[in-house]
C-alpha cells in the first residue's frame, strides 16, 4: 500500500529529517520525502491503519521540524 501526501517544508535538510523520522514510525515500511515536488510517498506495512499511522507520522515530523505540514 503506497500513498502520496502533499507536504510543506522549507528546507532540504528538514525534508531529509522528516524522511528519516517517518521511516521509523510504526506501520510505515518505507518513506520518501521529495523536497522539490513537496510530496511524501509513504509505503504502509501490511495491515497498518493508514489514518492512525499518518497521524503518528505528522506528530513525529512536527517534533523534528515544527514548521512542517502534511496534508492528510
Amino acid at each position: 500500500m503506497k500513498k502520496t501526501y502533499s507536504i510543506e517544508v522549507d528546507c532540504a535538510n528538514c525534508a531529509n529529517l522528516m524522511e528519516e523520522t517517518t521511516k521509523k514510525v510504526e506501520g510505515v515500511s518505507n518513506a520518501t520525502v521529495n523536497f522539490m515536488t513537496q510530496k511524501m510517498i509513504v509505503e504502509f506495512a501490511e495491515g497498518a491503519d493508514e489514518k492512525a499511522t499518518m497521524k503518528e507520522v505528522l506528530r513525529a515530523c512536527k517534533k523534528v521540524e515544527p514548521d512542517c505540514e502534511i496534508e492528510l
Partner: protein
Amino acid sequence: MNKKQKKMLTRIIISAVMLILINVLPVDKLPAPELIMTIGKLIFYIIIYVIIGYDILRKAFKGILNRRVFDENFLMAVATVGAFALAIITKSGDYNEAVAVMLFYQTGELFQSYAVGKSRRNISELMDIRPDYANIEKDGTIEKVDPSEVVIGTIIVVNPGEKVPIDGVVEDGISSLNTSALTGESVPRDVKPGDEIISGCINLNGVLRIRTTKDFGESTVSKILELVENSSSNKSRSENFISRFARVYTPVVCYLALALFIIPPVFNVFILHNPADISIWLYRALTFLVVSCPCALVISIPLTFFAAIGGAGREGILVKGSNYLEALSKAKYVVFDKTGTLTQGVFQVNDIHCSCDKCGEFCGCEHGHNENEDKRILEYAALAEIASSHPISNSLKLAYGKALDISRVTDIEEISGHGIKARVDGIPVAVGNARLMEREGYEYKKCNHPGTIVHVAIDGKYEGHILISDVIKAQSAKAIAELKNLGIKKNVMLTGDDKVIAEHTAKEIKIDEFHANLLPADKVSRVEELLSKKNDKETLCFVGDGINDAPVLTRADIGIAMGAMGSDAAIEAADVVLMDDDPINVPKAIRLAKRALRIVYENIGFALLIKIGCLMLAAIGLANMWLAIFADVGVMVLCVLNAMRALIKVR
C-alpha cells in the same frame, strides 16, 4: 511570495530600519543618566533581536526539548545569544553584531526559500501538461467534466488552445498539434480524421472531435505525470552522501567550536600562565559556528538534480530519478536495438531494379533508370498485392501512392511463403520472392542489396525486382558520432535481422560492433556479456523502442526507451524515456547528465573549500562575523544560482 515569506520580509524590513535608526540617530546625546541609557539601549536591541529572530530561538529551544540539538537553528541561536552576552560582559555596548548576524541569516533564509520555491515552480510549470477538464457533448450542448470520469469510447471535443486530455482517435476535424511539452519538438504535427493522438498535446487551430481509446489513468499524460512526480524519489549517491554528511558534520562542528572555546583559554591559563582571553575565544567559537551551517550543500545538490531532470523533461527526455542521471553521466557502453531505434522500423520501397542491361548483375544501377518502366513494375506489383495486408504489400501500395482500382485485378492466388499470382487487366502477373520465380520457371536476377527483394514477372516475362528495406533514421549516424565524442568506449548494435542487413546498417552509421540473428533472449545474454566485461565505474545503456525488449531494458544499468508514447511496457521497464524516437536524444541525455554531475561536484567542492577556509580563519581569529555570514549565506546563494544552470538547454 507566499504568506510566510511576506511575513518574514516585513520582519526583516522593520528590524533593519530599527537597527539603522539606533545607529544613525544621536541617541547618545539624550539628556538621561548613563545607567538608564545603557539599559535602554540594551532593551531596544533586544526588541529588534526578538522581532527578527524569535522563531529561530523557539525552534532551537524546541529542538533541545526534542533532543535534537545541533541543527542550524541551534547554531544561530547559540552564536547570536553568545555575541549578545559577550557584548554585555565586555561592556562594549556593541550589540550590532548579534542583531546583524541574525538579520543576515534570516535574509539568506528568505532568499533561499524564495529562490528554491521559484525554481520549483518554474520546473513544475515546464512539465505542466495536466489537463483540467474534458469537453463532452451531451444533448447538443458541451459540458466540462473531470477527465477521469470519461469512459472509453466517449467523443470529446478539443477546442483550439486546449490540451488534449485523453488519448484517442480523431473522428472529425483537422488541426495542428503542439507536442512540444511531450517531445520537445517545436514543429506542430498535423492531424486528420483517423489519426491517433496522445494526451498532453495542445490543439492549435481547428476544433477536434476525438473518440477516446483509453481511460484518463492509462493515458499518456497520466503516465508521464506519474513518472515525473516520482522521479526525484530515486535518490542519487551524491544526494545520499550529502544527507549522511550533514548528519555527521553538524555535531562535529559544534564540538570543534566548543573545543575552540575551552581548550585555548585553559591552555593559556595553566600552561602559559597568561590571561585566559575568554571573550576572544568565545567570539572565535561563535564565528566558527556561523560559518559552519551546511545549508549550501544540503540545498544545492538536490536542486541541481531537480533542475536537470526538469530541463531534460522540457526536451522530451524523462529521467526517472537522479540516480539514473548519475549513472548516465558515467556511461561508457551504449547498446542499441536496431529496428525502430536506429532504423525507422517501417518497410519502405527503397529502390526498383528493372531487368535492363544497365541494372546488370550487381544491380547497383542508379543511372539510366527508365522511370516509366519502374512505375509500371510498381503499379503491377501493388495491384497484384491489393488484397494482402502484409507489411510488404502495404509498403508497395504506399510507394505507388495512387488509388488502386480493385476491378482491374482478377484471379488472385496467394501462394503461402512464395508470393502472389494474379491477373491485372487480364495480364498474368507474378509477384513474390526468389522461390516463386523458381517455381514459376522465370529467370530472375539476384540482388546484392540488403533488404527484402520482391521479384515481379509480367505477362510471362521477368521484369525486375523491388528492393524493400527498413530505412536508417536520419540522425542515427550523427548520434553514434556524438556518442564517440562523449567518450563512449563502444557502441553496439543488436538485431534479430540477418547479417547482410545488419552489416549494411552498421557500416552506414559507423557503429563499433554488431550482432545479428538474435532472439530476444539472446539480446539479454549479449548485454550480460558486456556487463561482465566492464568495470564498476562504467555503466552500460541499452536503447530500445520498448517493443520486445523490456527484459533487456531492465537488465542494463540504464534502460533507455525511445518513442515511448503509447508503449506502457517500455515506460515501466525503462529508466530514461525519450518521448521522441530520434536517436540524437541519447547523446543529448548523456551530455545533460554529465553537466548536472559537474555542477554537483562544483558545488560540493566550492562550498567545502570556502567553508573550510573560513573555519580556519575563524579559528585563528582572522574572520569576523561578517565574513562568517558571507561564508554561510553567500555560498548558499552562489550554489543555488549555479544549480539553476542545470536547467539551461544543452546543444
